[in-house]
């Protein structure tokens, strides 16, 4: 009896339930989904999680390596603490060495007040997840730079979190725009066929034939210099959507060609349902899962692309920060050799791209639920 019940469940379950069930079997996809959820939540609360603001800098800490966290001070366990750095200049060869000033310790504290920001751009607030207190002997100025500092003495950890807001959302926003563009154009192409179809297919072929990065470079070069961050964000999203909608349109068109002669479409048409309603209410839901898959698989390419463009100075520009901008710091072999901590942002890029790829793969396997 119990077995029969599950079988009934199986046939009665909606497509989405079946997909979710199958997705859980793909372990990498499951892990990827959790990782992405954490990353997006971290980006959402970046202001709170980051101990410092986007532009806060400390000249003393220029290029400094990640901070070391200690717990035992002079034989006594005082909880997690850090030291302040001191700079010593060798008078004979003028080399600068940074070392920890062990004369006093600075305890790491949670929920501290720091740089003011606005929660979701609305509520003013200055609470941060962690920070350092004043020194044990009343000193000030110690900085907790978990991932070290860049060439201006800015906290890489904070900047990775704050940069994630741009790096993670631009590809996502553009995927959504190309999602709708693709459905609209692909459905017109597939549903009406004929001359419209031929023209749209040529256009898709043309955009697909021009290599992406050169196209991207040319389009980015068109962004006027010196515009506001929000406008730049808007332009980048548009460029990405312009390049990405073609893949989606191709999928939609193919599905339309195979579905438009189904009996239920004919029935709808005979009962006088309008063309747009047939497209949106009857046809699109039938292959929505495929569309979501191809949307997910389109995002990682955009993330790498945005990173490359920002790295070349063609995308997001300072003071706005994305992961690509952060990686400009690691642009030479010397940086990689002597300051490897500047490569830390790359770990985030890589993990995000891998996670989207695996999630997309899992979704694709799951999209065919009865298999």
């Amino acid at each position, binding site marked *: 009896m119990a077995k029969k019940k599950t079988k009934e469940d199986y046939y009665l379950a909606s497509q989405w339930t079946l997909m979710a069930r199958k997705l859980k079997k793909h372990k990498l996809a499951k892990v990827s989904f959790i990782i992405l959820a954490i990353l997006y939540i971290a980006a959402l609360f970046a202001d709170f999680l980051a101990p410092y603001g986007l532009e806060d800098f400390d000249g003393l800490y220029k290029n400094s390596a990640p901070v070391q966290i200690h717990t035992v001070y002079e034989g006594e366990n005082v909880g997690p603490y850090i030291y302040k750095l001191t700079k010593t200049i060798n008078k004979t060869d003028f080399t600068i060495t940074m070392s920890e000033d062990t004369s006093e310790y600075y305890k790491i504290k949670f929920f501290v007040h720091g740089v003011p920001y606005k929660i979701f751009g609305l509520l003013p607030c200055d609470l941060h997840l962690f920070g350092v207190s004043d020194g044990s002997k009343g000193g000030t100025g110690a900085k907790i730079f978990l991932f070290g500092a860049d060439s201006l003495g800015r906290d890489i950890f904070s900047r990775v979190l704050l940069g994630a807001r741009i790096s993670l959302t631009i590809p996502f926003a553009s995927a959504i725009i190309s999602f709708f563009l693709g459905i609209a154009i692909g459905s017109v192409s597939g549903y009406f066929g004929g001359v419209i179809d031929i023209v749209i297919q040529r256009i898709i072929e043309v955009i697909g034939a*021009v290599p992406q990065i050169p196209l991207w470079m*040319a389009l980015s070069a068109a962004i006027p210099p010196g515009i506001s961050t929000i406008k730049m964000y808007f332009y980048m999203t548009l460029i990405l959507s312009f390049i990405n909608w073609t893949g989606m349109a191709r999928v939609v068109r193919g599905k339309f060609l195979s579905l438009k002669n189904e009996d239920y479409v004919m029935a709808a048409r005979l009962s006088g349902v309008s063309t747009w309603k047939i497209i949106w209410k009857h046809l699109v839901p039938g292959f929505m899962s495929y569309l979501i898959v191809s949307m997910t698989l389109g995002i990682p390419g955009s993330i790498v692309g945005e990173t490359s463009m920002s790295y070349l100075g063609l995308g997001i520009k300072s003071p706005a920060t994305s992961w690509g901008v952060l990686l400009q710091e690691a642009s030479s072999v010397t940086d990689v050799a002597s300051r490897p901590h500047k490569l830390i942002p790359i770990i985030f890029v890589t993990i995000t791209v*891998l996670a989207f790829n695996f999630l997309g793969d899992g979704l694709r396997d799951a999209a065919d639920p009865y298999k």
Partner: protein
Amino acid sequence: MEALKDFFRKDLVQYIIKRILMFIPTLLLISVLVFFVIQLPPGDYVSAQISALASEGELVDADYAAAMRADYGLDLPVWQQYVKWIKDIIWTPTDSPYYRLYHSHHNWKYSFAYGRDVWSVVNERLGLTIAVTGIIMIFQYLVSIPIAVYASTHQYSAGDYISSIIGFLGTAIPNFILAIVLMYLSYKWTGSANVGLFSQEMLKNGVHLYNFGEFMKRMIIPIIVIGTSGTCGIIRSVRAQMLDEVARQYTLTARAKGVSEGKIVMKYCFRAAMNPTVSGLGGVLSSLFSGSTVTAMVLNMQIQGPVLFKALQSQDMYLAGAIVMVQAVLVVIGILLSDIALAFLDPRIRYSGGGR
């Protein structure tokens, strides 16, 4: 012999001719898109030059700027500029000054920044660009197809996950960073960063058989960086195709007949899975040009990418247009070749009149 005879059959030839004819409107549309895109940046080469001169303290009066614009044909409406551009590329008559100077019927216009014929700038690096792209493409297929076949025959095993992760890593790490890190490692281990495709000696004497090994050594980093960035896509599509084929009934029949597992995979499934792989050739070529652009800038490779970047920055629009156009044409040729190969491999396509 039978295959060759088959190749020259009428239906195949007809199909090829039809396909080639279909690419003419595509090429024209590409040229419109390319011209539109290179027109987009605000200002033109003259205004870029004027601001460059102004930063050196020289002032250019408006009359001179207007004369310069007229000289370059930049004062015409955009569509007229386009028509002139494309007309000269397709056919420059014998009595034109251009033909008398360069003995070529295809005038790609003048590169403002280089101060010479665009085609001579493009041509300088075209051969090497094609050679490098070709080598990397072969590498990509050699690496990704075995991984894909393995992953599909061992679905959801540790080997499937591990090989997929390795295949995906190349895509996930942005090319420029991978290039820098590999340059550093190469410097640390061999004492040479292997930057650029040619050694000093090669630049002096040219690439010959005796120093070809050195050239290939310098190709290692570009091959890894650019090659691995595209393996992900190939692995994914071949793996998916193989999984489909393995689940087909004919596979079951073959297994029931007692055909060995290796033979089933290689002789039945793999062959069927190759079709979509061949048809994806154009896309792979396109992504190779994309991937090599940024990498070439970091690694100082003597291919077209860096030239394009500089041309776009300095508003050298005809040069930028020519490079994007040439790359797009190469991709279109790639698609054409893959279509022909596909028609040759799969009779269904040429009988149905074919096509995407």
